[in-house]
Each structure stands twice: as C-alpha cells, then as structure tokens.
C-alpha cells in the first residue's frame, strides 16, 4: 500500500512535467488547429536563453520575464516569417515545416551551448515538500504554476475580447473575418502565447531533467499523449491528462510485470492510439460538429 501511494505521488510529480508541456501543445492547437512538432525544441531553446541570461548575471525572475518576452516575440516572428506564407498550403507542408524547425533549433542550440548537461536553478528549491520525500518543493511549485497558468488561460479565453477573438479565429475563421477580426494576427498571437507557455514549461522542467538540447524529446511525446487524452481543445483536459499519464505510466511500470522497463514509452504511444480510436475528442474535448 505504501509503495502504491508512493508511486501515485511520484507519478503526479512526473505528471506535472507532462501537464506543463501539454498546456503548450493545446495552446498552439487552439490557434492553428495542428500540433507543432517543434514545440519542445522551442521551449528548450527558450530555456537555454534563460540559462544564458543567468550566466550573464541576470537574477532568476529578471531572466524569467525576459525569456517570456523573448519567446513570445520569437513565436510571433516564426509565424510571420515561416508559416504565414504557408497559410494555404496543405497540412503536409506544415508538418515538413515543423520538422525542419525542430532540426534547426536543436542543432543551433547544440552548436551554441554544446550537448553537455547544464544545471538549471529552481525558484522553489528542492527540499522535500510537506515532509514527503517523493515530491520536492520544486515539483509542488511546478504543479502550482501549472494550475495558475490554467486559470489565467481560462479567464483569458472566456472573458477577454482578444481571447474570444482568438477562439473565433481558430474555430470559425470565415465568420470571424466577417465580424472584423484580424484572423491572421490572431494566429501569430497564438504562436507567441504558445511559445511563451512553452518557455515556462521548459524553465520548470529543466531543474528536474537537466538542461541539454535533447531534453524535450521524450517530454514532448508524453505531452502529446496527455493533450490527446485530455482533449486537444481543452486546456483543463490537457493538465488532467498530464497527471493521468504520469500516474498511469508509473503504476503500469510497477505492477504490470515485464512492462515496466522496456515499454514505458510505448505505453504513452499506445495511449494516444487508444484514445484516438475510442474517444477522438479526448476526455474533456468538445465534439466538433460540421455541417455538410
């Protein structure tokens, strides 16, 4: 029983990593209706920028804010320069663009900061949280930040003009244009926000997994799984999905003999496939009805 509870706690702790990433995945999906395969690398790059700023002597929160601004601007610029010209191109073209972006960002980071691991500080410290040895204050802080981020996003999309305009631009571009929304800029804004949220995820994940150019590879796959499980259209679902994937993966690793070690990653992928087959909208996603 003790082991069971411990494994759930440990699962929630890793789940927080996936939840953070899933939130960024959902954000970009809201804006452009696709998954962005370069999302993880963009987050990694932002985290390196934060690390570099701190190496230059900028204090943590200063670096944090500057990185947010950098990432937001970077996201907007990528959209304007790379993806706006591809606006009417088929999905496959976009996928090729995402993969190219992935490789470029990864190599540039490797060239600039090399491939050795770097320590990234945590604003929350790493002592045990409330006496539990399985969750550190950093992981608790990470869960807290994820939830705050979630609430802010909810308020933004539900109650602000610009949030509503973004939703309209993503789900009904034609009608949105007719009521005077600049849908093109809404998409750029979505890229910027997704990049900024990704940078927060990167800065929260790096103290756990250590900073290096490939740190997001595994995380992004689990983030996708979480987002699909929770529903790609629901930020709330993405966060719940993140925790569920973390706990599920951990319990399966502990209690299903033979699965634990070699099949951990396939579990995440099997989850994606299963959810897509059984309930394509995920646990909390909206069902999309198209008039024909």
């Amino acid at each position, binding site marked *: 029983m003790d082991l069971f509870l411990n494994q759930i706690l*440990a699962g929630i702790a890793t789940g927080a990593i996936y939840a953070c990433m899933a939130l960024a995945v959902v954000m970009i999906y809201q804006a452009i209706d696709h998954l962005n395969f370069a999302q993880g690398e963009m987050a990694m790059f932002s985290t390196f920028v934060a690390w570099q700023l701190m190496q230059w002597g900028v204090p943590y929160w200063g670096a944090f804010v500057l990185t947010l601004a950098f990432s937001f601007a970077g996201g907007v610029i990528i959209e304007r320069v790379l993806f706006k010209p591809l606006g009417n191109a088929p999905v496959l073209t976009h996928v090729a663009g995402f993969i190219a972006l992935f490789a470029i960002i990864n190599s540039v980071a490797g060239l600039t900061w090399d*491939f050795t691991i770097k320590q990234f500080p945590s604003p929350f410290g790493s002592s*045990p949280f409330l006496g539990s040895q*399985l969750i*550190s204050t950093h992981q608790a802080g990470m869960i807290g930040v994820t939830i705050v981020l979630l609430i802010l996003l909810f308020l933004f999309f539900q109650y602000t003009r610009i949030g509503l305009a973004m939703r309209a631009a993503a789900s009904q571009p034609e009608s949105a244009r007719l009521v005077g929304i600049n849908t093109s800029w809404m998409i750029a804004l979505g890229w910027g926000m997704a990049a900024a949220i990704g940078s927060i995820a990167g800065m929260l994940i790096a103290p756990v997994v250590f900073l290096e*150019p490939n740190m997001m590879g595994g*995380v992004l*796959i*689990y983030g996708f799984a979480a987002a699909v499980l929770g529903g790609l259209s629901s930020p709330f679902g993405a966060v719940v999905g993140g925790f569920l994937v973390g706990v599920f993966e951990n319990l399966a690793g502990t209690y299903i003999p033979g699965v*634990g070690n070699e099949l951990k990653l396939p579990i995440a992928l099997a989850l994606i496939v299963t959810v897509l087959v059984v309930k394509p909208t995920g646990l909390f996603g909206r069902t999309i009805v198209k008039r024909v």
Partner: protein
Amino acid sequence: MLTLSAAALTLASPALAEGVVSERADRVIRIGNLMPYSGPASAYSIVGRIEQAYFKMINDQGGINGRRVEFISYDDAYNPAKAVEQVRKLVERDQVLLVFSAMGTPTNAAIQKYLNLKQVPQLFAASGATRFGDPQAFPWTMGWQPPYQSEGRVYAKFILATRPQGRIAVLYQNDDLGRDLLKGLKDGLGDKAAMIALEESYEVAEPSADNHIARLKASGADVFVSITTPKFAAQSIKAAAALDWHPLYVQALVAASIAAVLRPAGLDASQGLVSAAYNKDASDPQWRDDAGMQRFHAFLDGYAPDVDRGDNSVAYGYGAAQCLVEVLRRAGDDLSRANIMKQAASLQGYAPDTLLPGITVNTAADDFHPIEQLRMMRFSGDHWELFGPVIDGKLRD
C-alpha cells in the same frame, strides 16, 4: 567534412600513380580515424585532436623506425551510416594501413564487419563494448579501454569484499553499455548473483530517471549500481539524495566526470560515490612527480597547450596513441596488416604513461582486451580519491 591532415587532399589528386603510392608507403604510415567532430557526441572529438597532436610530436622526433605518421581523421557525427561511408573512403581512397581509435560503440559496430572482410586492422576501437574483443569472430578488431564487462566484474569483487551481505539495486541503460556491464556484474557475483534485489532498465528517450530511483529505493537495497550515461547519472544522484536514500553508490565510469555529471548533480549529493579508474587524473596533484605524467604535461605544453587537462578524454587519447606507436615500433619493417595485428596481440605488461601504476596493457592471440584492470575511487570533497588495490576484471578465467 573535417580533415585533420593535408594528406587526404594530396592523395585525391589523380596524377598520383599507383607506383608512387607504394613507394611513399615505404616512408609513410597512413592511419585512418573517425571522430564525432559534429553532433551530440562532439565533446569526445578531443580524443582525435590529441591523437593528431601526439603523432605530430612523434614525427618531429623522427617518426617510427624512420617513417612518418599520417593521421587522417574524418567526421562521422557519431552516425553509424556515415561511419561506414567514411571508413570506405579511408580504406579505398586514402589506402590507410589501419583504422585506429574510431570513437563510439554504434559507429565501431557499424564498420566492424567491413574492416574484417577487408582484413584491415580496427585497432583500439574507442568503446568499452565487449564485442570489440572477440578474436574468433573478428580477428581484425581490438578495443583498448577496459571492457564494460570487466568493469562490472571489478564492481562485483568490490561489493563482495565490502558488503558481502548486501542487497544490490541496479539501474542500467538498455543498450550495449548497460547490458554488458550488468552481465559483468552478475558473472563477477557468480553464485551470489541473488544479491541483486532489483534491476531496472531505462531508455535514453525517457525524460527522467526519478521514478526508477523511487522503485529502487523501495526494494530496500543498500548497494546501488548506476550504469548510466551523464544525464541519467546526474538525475539519479540528485533523485537519490532528494529521496534521502544513501546506499553504497557505485557509478559506472562512463559518467564519473566531475564537470559533466557530479557538478550539475550537486557536489553535496555526490559525496561518497564510488567508481573505478584506469587512467591517472591529470588534475590530481599526487602525480606531480610521476615521470609518465611529466611527459604527458610536456607533450601538452608543446603540442596542445589550450586543452582542458582535467578532461578524461585527453589522457585517453594520449594513452591510446602511445600504445599504437608502441605496436608500430615493434612491427619494425614488416608493416603488413597481419603483422600489425600480431604485434597488437602480443603486448605483455606494457604501461603507457597515463595508466595508473600497476595497470598494464596485456594481449594475446586469444585475448583482445588490452586493459582489464581498474582501481576503485571514492568521491570526497571536490575530487576522486583512489583507494584499495588494483582489481583484475579479466574476462577469461
């Protein structure tokens, strides 16, 4: 593509007739090499730079038996497909006598069949995988550093001596490195292999090792053998400390670097770790008056003054290059590929400058593992401290 020698360029010239090649071959020993000068493993390429510099020093001193060494080193980006392409170029266009110290397990594995088919020596492959010391299947391939299985046997002997009643937890990377070292550990424990309470493997694609550490701790083990590469090694050290788990912590040598692993993981969390060594640590003051290390430092002063001497790869490149020069010297004027292999397989008690006292290079017609001894070391303060005797991890009992 990075070429460290102008030789490759001259050779590419079509005006060069066959006869000239063989005439030149009489005065020149052409050595091929592959290094990851680009890509994620590029930190290891310092080995190639040091080897290049070492051969330059040998040439300045008059060469080997009056012959100059040409060291032709290509970039394979740690990519097996590219390694095959580059090694073909080395053998067929550059006509190297042998391939020396190619870096990495996947890359050496990729070129192993080709070189054996062509009967070109693949000497001192820079990998600890045990497959590079199998003279029956691959008579043209020889490793250099202690094979991972030897390292596993050394840890087994150490654990049996210090914690005979211990319960062992193992975390290993699910590849050649992890499985080899684990096999060595089990072979070394012999009929005491039941001491292993739990073994967990991880894939390099996993984001973090934290959950494994929680499970390993729950197994109640008081000895932990961490067969991990740098990122996961650092995560494990940090996670074990965070979980307040303080077993006898054995860290595999591949990730025992202070700068790349222990410092990021936290020096406090790293206190008391044990690992094994076969090279002298160039930053350790106890070797200040050591004749071998004085030669090593003199070489670096003259030929590679800007390298970080604390980087293990520097001592590695020096030792491997020195060992190859010894083999070529012994080969005398018979520079046939068969004689090179024969000389490489008859080194007895040879001690390159950088090996720890008491550790020597020993090979035989049926023993293609040059170094099989290690000494334990414990992390204390901000450096590794050697302790105990030299332990033999010989694979053929």
